[in-house]
C-alpha cells in the first residue's frame, strides 16, 4: 500500500466509485516518477479494461448529483496533492534532461491515448459529456501544453525535437480545446481560443516589427563588430540622446512654437515681432542670418517673439502659461528619463563583488567578444586576452611587487599633479582672457581676433588639452576601461571650466542690459507719448498708429542669451565636423596614399590612422546636451537644431569611423560604462538647471518682449493662472502649499526618508557582504576538509553538515547582533526568524543541495512551514533511506 496516499486526508474519495478513477490513474505515472520506490495502489486501475469502466461510469452518473458537492471538496484536496507532487518534482530536477524528456514523451503519449479512450467512452454514453473533474484536468493539461509552446523557444533542444514536441502539443490542443465547452459554450470557447491564438500571433508579429524598427541597429552592429563594444557604446548613447531630444522637440514644438505660429499675431503686427527700422536693410543678408540676427532674431525660434497675451486664438490657448510649463517639463522629463535609465542599468549589476572570486573563470569564459567580426579586431582581442591572462598570472604568482607598487603609485600621483596643474593653468588662462574681453568690449574698434579671443582660446584648449591628458595618463598604466573613466573625468573638469566662464560672461552681459532697461523703457514711453500728442496734427482724424518697426525697444536679454546658445551650438557642430574631416579623414587619406612614396612606413609609423576618440566624443555630446538644456528656455528652436545635429552626426560619424579610423590597440569591453556616461549627463543636467532656475527666479523679464513681459518675475504667470482660472479654494490651497511653514517640514521629511533608506540599503549590503564572506569561509573549510581526508564516510559528512549548519546559525546570530536594530529587523523580515538558518544552510551546503531529497516513510510530505534545524536532518535521513537494504 502506498504510504503517501494514506497520509492524505482526502483519501475517502477513492472509495467513491465514479469516473474520476481513470484520471487519478493517469496522474499516477507522474507521481511515481516523482517518488521512485513508492507504489501506487490506484495505479492498478488503468489496467482494467473499458467494460469495467463503463460500469463504473453508469454508477457514477447515478451518483453524479450527490457527488457534485463532494467533488468540489475533493478538488481542493487534489490540488494540494498535486502541489506536493510538483514540489517533489522540483527537487528532483537533478537527473539528466534527456531521461526526463523520454519520460515526458511517454507520459504525453499515455495521456493522449487515455484521453482519447475516456472521452470516447463518455461521449458515447450520454450528452452530458465531461465531469467537472475531467474538465479541470484537461484544462490543466491544455494549460501545460500552452505553457510548453510558449516556452519552447527557450528550451535547449535541437530544432527537430522542438518541432516534434510542438506538433504533439498542437495536436493535443486542437483535440481538446474544443471539447472543453459544453453545448453552446463549446462554440464560444472555440471562438475564444481562436481569438487568443490570433492575438498571440499578432503580438509576435508586432514584436518582430518593433525589433525591425530600432533605428540604426545594423549600422551600430557593424561598428561594434569592427571596433568592439566600447566604440559602439558611444553610438548607442548617441541614439538614446537622439530619442530624448525627439521627445523634447515634440514637447516644445507642439505646445509652444506651433500654437504661436498658427494662432498668435502674425509677423510685423507688433514691435517685438518686427525687425527694427535700423536693421531692416541688412536683415536678409546671409552673414547676418548666420549670426542669428535680422529676421532670425525676430522669429519664433527665440523667446522675444512670443507675445504676452494671456490667451491666443479661438482655442483660448494660454501661451505664456504653456511656455513656462514646457520649460519646466523639459527639465522634469530629462531628469526622469536619465534617472530611470540609470536605475535600470543598475539593476543588473548587483553582483559586483563576485568578480574577484572568479577572475580566471571570467577571463576564460567571457573575455571573448562574440560580436567581433573583423580579423583586425580579432587580432587585437587575442593580444589583449593574452596580456590580461599574463597580468593575472603575474598577480597570482607574486601577490605584490614592492618596488613596482611604489613606482606606479608615485607615477599616478605625479600624473594627477601634472593634470591638476594643467587644469589650473587653463582655468587661469580662461579667466584672463575673459577679463581682457570685457576690456575690449568697452573699446570702440577692435579687431576680429580681439572680438573672438575667448572662443579661440577655448577651442584651442579643448583641442590640445585632451591629448595632453592622454599622454600624461599613460604614466598611470591603468586598465583602459578605468583609464577611460579618468580621462572622461578630467576632460569633464576642463569643459566645465569653459562652460562656467562662458556663463559668467553671459551673466555680466545680462546684468548690463538689465541696468539699461529702465532708461530704454522711459525712452519708449516718451516716444509714443510724443508721437500721439505732437502738435500740428488734426485732432479730429485719429492718427495712424506708429509703425512697429519704428518703435524704440529694449535689448531683450532673453533673446540675446538664446542667440548665444544657438551660435555656440552651431559653431560647436561645425568644429566637430571639421575636426573629423581634417583630423580623421584627411589624415587617413594622406597616410593611405602617401605611403607609396614616403621614406618610412606611414601606416605603422608616426602619423598612422586615428583611433576613435571615445572620451572626447562622449563629453562633446554631453556638454552639447547641457547647452541645449540651458538654452531651450530662451530659444525654443534650439532643440530642433539639435535634433538635426544629432541626426547628421549619427550618419557622419558612422561613416567617418568606418572609413578612416582603426580599432583601438587594446579592445576592451564597455560593460556598464554606460552608467558612467549617464552619471556625467545627470551632473551636467543639474549644472545646467542651476543658471536657468536662477534667471527664472531672480531676474525680471524684459518689459517689451517675450511671453512674460510686464510681469515682475517669470513665475508670476503661475500665480496669475491660479488666481484667474482656478476656483478660489484651489488658489487658497496653492497659497497654503507654497507656505514656507509647509515646505520646510516637507523637505526635512524628504531628507529623513533619504537618510533612512540609505541606511537600510547600507545595512543590507553589509549583511550581503557578510553572507558572502561566510560562503567564502565555508568553501575554504570544505576544501581543507576534503584534502585532509579523501575517504569521507556518510557519517562524517553528516557531522560536518551538522556542525556547519550550527556554525551558520551562530554566525547569522552574531551578524545580526552586530548591526543596528533596524538592520536586524530587516534581516528578520527577509529570512523570517529562525528559518534564516535553515535557508542559509540550504544555500551554503552543497551536499544537501545535491542530494535528491526524498522523504522517509511516514513523514508527512508537505509540512508547509519551514522547520528550523529540519533540513540537515531530513537530508541525512533521506540518505539513509536511499541506501539499499542490507
Amino acid at each position, binding site marked *: 500500500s502506498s504510504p503517501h496516499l494514506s497520509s492524505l486526508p482526502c483519501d475517502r474519495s477513492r472509495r467513491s466509485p465514479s469516473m474520476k478513477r481513470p484520471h487519478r490513474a493517469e496522474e499516477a505515472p507522474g507521481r511515481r516518477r516523482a517518488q521512485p520506490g513508492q507504489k501506487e495502489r490506484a495505479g492498478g486501475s488503468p489496467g482494467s479494461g473499458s467494460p469495467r469502466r463503463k460500469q463504473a461510469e453508469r454508477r457514477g452518473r447515478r451518483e453524479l448529483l450527490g457527488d457534485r458537492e463532494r467533488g468540489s471538496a475533493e478538488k481542493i484536496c487534489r490540488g494540494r496533492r498535486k502541489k506536493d507532487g510538483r514540489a517533489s518534482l522540483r527537487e528532483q530536477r537533478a537527473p539528466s534532461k534527456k531521461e526526463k524528456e523520454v519520460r515526458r514523451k511517454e507520459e504525453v503519449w499515455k495521456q493522449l491515448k487515455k484521453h482519447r479512450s475516456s472521452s470516447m467512452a463518455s461521449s458515447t454514453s450520454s450528452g452530458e459529456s465531461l465531469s467537472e473533474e475531467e474538465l479541470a484536468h484537461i484544462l490543466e493539461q491544455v494549460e501545460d501544453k500552452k505553457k510548453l509552446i510558449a516556452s519552447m523557444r527557450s528550451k535547449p533542444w535541437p530544432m527537430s525535437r522542438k518541432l516534434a514536441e510542438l506538433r504533439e502539443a498542437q495536436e493535443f490542443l486542437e483535440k481538446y480545446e474544443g471539447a472543453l465547452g459544453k453545448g453552446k459554450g463549446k462554440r464560444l470557447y472555440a471562438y475564444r481560443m481562436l481569438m487568443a491564438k490570433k492575438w498571440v500571433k499578432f503580438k509576435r508579429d508586432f514584436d*518582430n516589427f518593433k525589433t525591425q524598427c530600432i533605428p540604426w541597429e545594423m549600422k551600430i552592429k557593424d561598428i561594434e563588430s569592427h571596433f568592439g563594444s566600447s566604440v559602439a557604446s558611444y553610438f548607442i548613447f548617441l541614439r538614446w540622446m537622439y530619442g530624448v531630444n525627439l521627445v523634447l522637440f515634440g514637447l516644445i514644438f507642439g505646445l509652444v512654437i506651433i500654437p504661436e505660429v498658427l494662432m498668435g499675431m502674425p509677423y510685423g503686427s507688433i514691435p517685438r515681432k518686427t525687425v527694427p527700422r535700423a536693421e531692416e536693410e541688412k536683415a536678409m543678408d546671409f552673414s547676418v542670418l548666420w549670426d542669428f540676427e535680422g529676421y532670425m532674431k525676430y522669429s519664433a525660434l527665440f523667446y522675444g517673439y512670443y507675445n504676452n497675451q494671456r490667451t491666443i486664438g479661438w482655442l483660448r490657448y494660454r501661451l505664456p502659461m504653456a511656455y513656462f510649463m514646457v520649460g519646466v517639463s523639459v527639465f522634469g522629463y530629462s531628469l526622469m528619463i536619465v534617472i530611470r535609465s540609470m536605475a535600470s542599468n543598475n539593476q543588473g549589476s548587483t553582483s559586483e563583488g563576485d568578480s574577484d572570486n572568479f577572475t580566471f573563470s571570467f577571463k576564460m569564459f567571457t573575455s571573448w567578444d562574440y560580436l567581433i567580426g573583423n580579423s583586425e579586431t580579432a587580432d587585437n582581442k587575442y593580444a589583449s586576452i*593574452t596580456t590580461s591572462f599574463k597580468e593575472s598570472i603575474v598577480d597570482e604568482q607574486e601577490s605584490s611587487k614592492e618596488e613596482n607598487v611604489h613606482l606606479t603609485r608615485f607615477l599616478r600621483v605625479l600624473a594627477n599633479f601634472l593634470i591638476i596643474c594643467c587644469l589650473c593653468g587653463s582655468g587661469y588662462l580662461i579667466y584672463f582672457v575673459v577679463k581682457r574681453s570685457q576690456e575690449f568690449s568697452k573699446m570702440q574698434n577692435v579687431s576680429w581676433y580681439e572680438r573672438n579671443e575667448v572662443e579661440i582660446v577655448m577651442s584651442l584648449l579643448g583641442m590640445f588639452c585632451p591629448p595632453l591628458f592622454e599622454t600624461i595618463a599613460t604614466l598611470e598604466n591603468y586598465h583602459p576601461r578605468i583609464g577611460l573613466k579618468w580621462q572622461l573625468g578630467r576632460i569633464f573638469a576642463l569643459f566645465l571650466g569653459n562652460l562656467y566662464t562662458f556663463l559668467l560672461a553671459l551673466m555680466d552681459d545680462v546684468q548690463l542690459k538689465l541696468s539699461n532697461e529702465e532708461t530704454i523703457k522711459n525712452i519708449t514711453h516718451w516716444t509714443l507719448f510724443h508721437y500721439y500728442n505732437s502738435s500740428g496734427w488734426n485732432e479730429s482724424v485719429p492718427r495712424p498708429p506708429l509703425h512697429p518697426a519704428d518703435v524704440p525697444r529694449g535689448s531683450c536679454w532673453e533673446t540675446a542669451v538664446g542667440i548665444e546658445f544657438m551660435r555656440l551650438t552651431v559653431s560647436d557642430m561645425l568644429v566637430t565636423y571639421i575636426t573629423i574631416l581634417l583630423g580623421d579623414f584627411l589624415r587617413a587619406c594622406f597616410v593611405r596614399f602617401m605611403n607609396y612614396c614616403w621614406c618610412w612606413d606611414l601606416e605603422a609609423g608616426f602619423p598612422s590612422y586615428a583611433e576613435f576618440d571615445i572620451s572626447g566624443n562622449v563629453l562633446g555630446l554631453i556638454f552639447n546636451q547641457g547647452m541645449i538644456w540651458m538654452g531651450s528656455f530662451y530659444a525654443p528652436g534650439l532643440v530642433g537644431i539639435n535634433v538635426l545635429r544629432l541626426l547628421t552626426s549619427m550618419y557622419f560619424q558612422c561613416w567617418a569611423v568606418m572609413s578612416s579610423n582603426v580599432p583601438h590597440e587594446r579592445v576592451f569591453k564597455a560593460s556598464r560604462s554606460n552608467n558612467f556616461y549617464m552619471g556625467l549627463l545627470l551632473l551636467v543636467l543639474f549644472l545646467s538647471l542651476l543658471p536657468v532656475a536662477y534667471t527664472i527666479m531672480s531676474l525680471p523679464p524684459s518689459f517689451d518682449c517675450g511671453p512674460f513681459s510686464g510681469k515682475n518675475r517669470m513665475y508670476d504667470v503661475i500665480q496669475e493662472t491660479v488666481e484667474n482660472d482656478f476656483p478660489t479654494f484651489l488658489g487658497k490651497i496653492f497659497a497654503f502649499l507654497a507656505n514656507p511653514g509647509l515646505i520646510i517640514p516637507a523637505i526635512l521629511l524628504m531628507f529623513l526618508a533619504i537618510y533612512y533608506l540609505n541606511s537600510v540599503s547600507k545595512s543590507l549590503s553589509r549583511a550581503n557582504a557578510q553572507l558572502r564572506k561566510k560562503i567564502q569561509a565555508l568553501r575554504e573549510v570544505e576544501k581543507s576538509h576534503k584534502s585532509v581526508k579523501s575517504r569521507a564516510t556518510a557519517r562524517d559528512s553528516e557531522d560536518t553538515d551538522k556542525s556547519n549548519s550550527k556554525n551558520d546559525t551562530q554566525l547569522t546570530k552574531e551578524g545580526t547582533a552586530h548591526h543596528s536594530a533596524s538592520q536586524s529587523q530587516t534581516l528578520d523580515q527577509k529570512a523570517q526568524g529562525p528559518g534564516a538558518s535553515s535557508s542559509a544552510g540550504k544555500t551554503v551546503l552543497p551536499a544537501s543541495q545535491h542530494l535528491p531529497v526524498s522523504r522517509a516513510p511516514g513523514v508527512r510530505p508537505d509540512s508547509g512551514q519551514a522547520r528550523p534545524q529540519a533540513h540537515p536532518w531530513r537530508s541525512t535521513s533521506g540518505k539513509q533511506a536511499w541506501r539499499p537494504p542490507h
Partner: protein
Amino acid sequence: MGNKQTVFTHEQLEAYQVGMMDQAIGGLFYRYQDLAPQLVPLDYTSCPDVKVPYELIGSMPELKDNPFRQRIAQVFSEDGDGHMTLDNFLDMFSVMSEMAPRDLKAYYAFKIYGVCADPRVGKWERTQTVTKLTRGELSTEEVSLICEKVLDEADGDHDGRLSLEDFRNMILRAPDFLR
C-alpha cells in the same frame, strides 16, 4: 511572404517561428542557402536531408574570426562533426540571438567551452580553450596554472569537475556575460 511560401509551407513556417528566438526565418534561410547554393534546394516543403559542410559554416562573417567556431559548429550539428542541416543552423542563430535568455545561453556556452562532466576530458578541453583564446602564446605551465585556477574558482561542490550547475552558477554572475 510569397517567396517564403514557396520555400516552406505555412505550417512549417509557423512551427519554426514558435521554436526560434529571432524570427526572421526567411532571411536566415537565404543565408543558409547562400552558403551552398548548389547543395541546398529552394524548396523545403518536403524537408530534404541536406547538410552544409563545416568549411562553409565556419567561413561565415559571424564565425570566421571566432576562435571557437569549430566547437560551436560541432555543438549545434547533429553528429558533432560540424556539418549542419537547416534545423541546426536555425538553432544556432536562435541561441546566438540577442533575445535568447541567459539560461539558454549558459547551457550552450557550457557545451561550447566543453567543460565536460568527465574530469580528464574537461581538463583537456579547458586547455584547448585557453590555447585558442591566446593563440598558443602562453607556455604550457601558464596554461595549466590557469586551468587549475579556473577549476579551483568555479568548482562549487569540490568534486574535481565542472558540472553544468557550477558553470551556470559562475557564468551567470559574470559582468560581461550578456552585458
